[in-house]
């Protein structure tokens, strides 16, 4: 709980000189305000999920999770993430390599384009696939003719998920790799390493924590995406419902305990994500402070 305090005592001590600190009552007030806001807006919703999930006891909880529809939703969610995340990892690494290690015109614009899905409403992200693959869409008639289902089927869900999670890995890696520069890679090339060797032995060890961080975030969003998937799914129980969609259906049927039971799995995923993120940040901080040590002494 106080891990971050133990980690950076120096960073805090910096502010404890008499000329740069506030009176105690201001400190206490600000901390109280922040903690109150924290409890009401963050802790309370998170706690509610678990309290509601278990409100009817463990029996109901477990049966909600092991129902046929819930298991199908969990399976579909895992499949979707298992396809979307690796694809976006390959893209993210390749985009970061091109952008961070080379100079070319239009680079900033390219970065903006990569960020695009992040700033688009998830509902719009879903809609674009309706416009392409829907009955009246670009490929709608052709797909119907050949009896291929994309919209309101698994491929549509996967595509929409790829779209909304598109920038996550790239935007973690680009600033990281830009900051690291190309010197180490150039040294490896001078020493005779091939392209893949440069990447595996020089680049990857340097970016592994950032990459892991990007994968974690990408995965969390892929499993938790609601708006975009909701538009393309068709809400067919047991077939095209992901976990968040299953939560919605149960909730709208006033089956609150079951809805929160499935939601609790997603909340656990969020907690694990945040835990891993804290861990990764700690690792990168350590890496940074270690790489700075020689210059300090």
């Amino acid at each position, binding site marked *: *709980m*106080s891990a971050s305090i133990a980690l950076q005592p120096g960073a805090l001590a910096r*502010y404890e000189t008499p000329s740069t600190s506030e009176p105690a009552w201001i400190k206490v007030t600000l901390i109280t305000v922040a903690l109150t806001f924290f409890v*009401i807006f963050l802790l309370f919703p998170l706690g509610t*999920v678990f309290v509601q999930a278990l409100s009817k006891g463990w029996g109901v909880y477990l049966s909600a999770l092991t129902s046929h529809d819930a298991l199908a939703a969990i399976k579909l969610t895992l499949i979707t993430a298992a396809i979307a995340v690796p694809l976006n990892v390959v893209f993210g690494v390749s985009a970061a390599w091109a952008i961070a290690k080379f100079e070319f015109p239009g680079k900033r614009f390219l970065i903006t384009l990569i960020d695009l899905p992040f700033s688009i409403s998830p509902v*719009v992200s879903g809609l674009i696939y309706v416009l392409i693959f829907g009955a009246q869409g670009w490929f709608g008639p052709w797909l119907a003719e050949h009896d291929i289902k994309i919209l309101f089927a698994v491929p549509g869900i996967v595509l929409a998920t790829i779209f909304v999670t598109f920038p996550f890995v790239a935007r973690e890696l680009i600033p990281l790799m830009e900051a690291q520069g190309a010197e180490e890679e150039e040294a490896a090339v001078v020493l005779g390493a091939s392209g893949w060797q440069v990447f595996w032995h020089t680049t990857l060890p340097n970016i592994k924590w950032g990459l892991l961080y990007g994968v974690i975030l990408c995965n969390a969003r892929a499993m938790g995406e609601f708006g975009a998937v909701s538009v393309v799914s068709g809400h067919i129980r047991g077939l095209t419902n992901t976990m968040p969609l299953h*939560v919605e259906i149960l909730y709208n049927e006033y089956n609150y305990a079951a809805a929160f039971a499935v939601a609790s799995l997603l909340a656990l995923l*969020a907690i694990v994500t*945040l835990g891993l993120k804290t861990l990764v940040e700690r690792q990168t901080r350590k890496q940074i402070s270690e790489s700075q040590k020689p210059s300090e002494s």
Partner: protein
Amino acid sequence: MASFKNFSPLPGFRLSLGYTLFYLTLIVLIPLSAVVTNTVGMGWEAFWSAVTEPRVVATYKLTFGASLLAAAVNVVFGLIFAWVLVRYRFPGKGLVDALVDLPFALPTAVAGIALATIYAPNGPIGSLLAPWGIEIAYNPNGVLIALIFIGLPFVVRTVQPVLADLEKDVEEAAAGLGASRWQTFLKIILPHVTPALLTGFAMAFARAVGEYGSVIFIAGNMPMVSEITPLMIITKLEQYDYRGATAIASVMLLISFILLLVINGLQGWMQGRYTKGA
């Protein structure tokens, strides 16, 4: 592009850039162009009547009003959060720091049903407020609450590193020149974090405008009162009114583009401000 060079000793430029552009085009650009071509195809009049329908206009007002307000609330509390996390020690700090990102990590549908349950008239907070005549859930207040939740991390996480970067000696210099702590805050610290605050504001606002999952459960979704614009697109789709949905989507896309440009501009400003040594 003064430093443009055609030659680099590193391999893989063509491959990586080529793949990047290919994948970007396939996944993002072509699908997005569907909105544009469909909008252009429907003609000006159809477009205009779809996007100015009174029920749709009411959603703009709610979406933008609530998003602005939520982003403003987040600027205030986000700054307090960042300040407290960077400068003070208190019990539970590690937990607070980790959970600030909860709105990023928690699926929006989960956040939505949790908030709706808490603020419903019979929920733990809603029942406390009900005797005072304050209703949060199932009206525009609920939209505001959900958007505050979803936007908080943007401000905290943009301000936090900038605040941590402010050298102590700058504040000491101000104190040494006779400035009170409040003057130091107003004249030194606040100008230093202003670009970050604005960036955080714009990011929280952009996210709030497009937000769907965490809002619809708590909003009540009454036409003309508590419907948000993204919901309007879904409603149109469910009525098989693809044109209407596309028209509204193109308005939202345009706004997203503008906000993206604004945020990029702000970030450029921030970088210029914070990386120049002084």
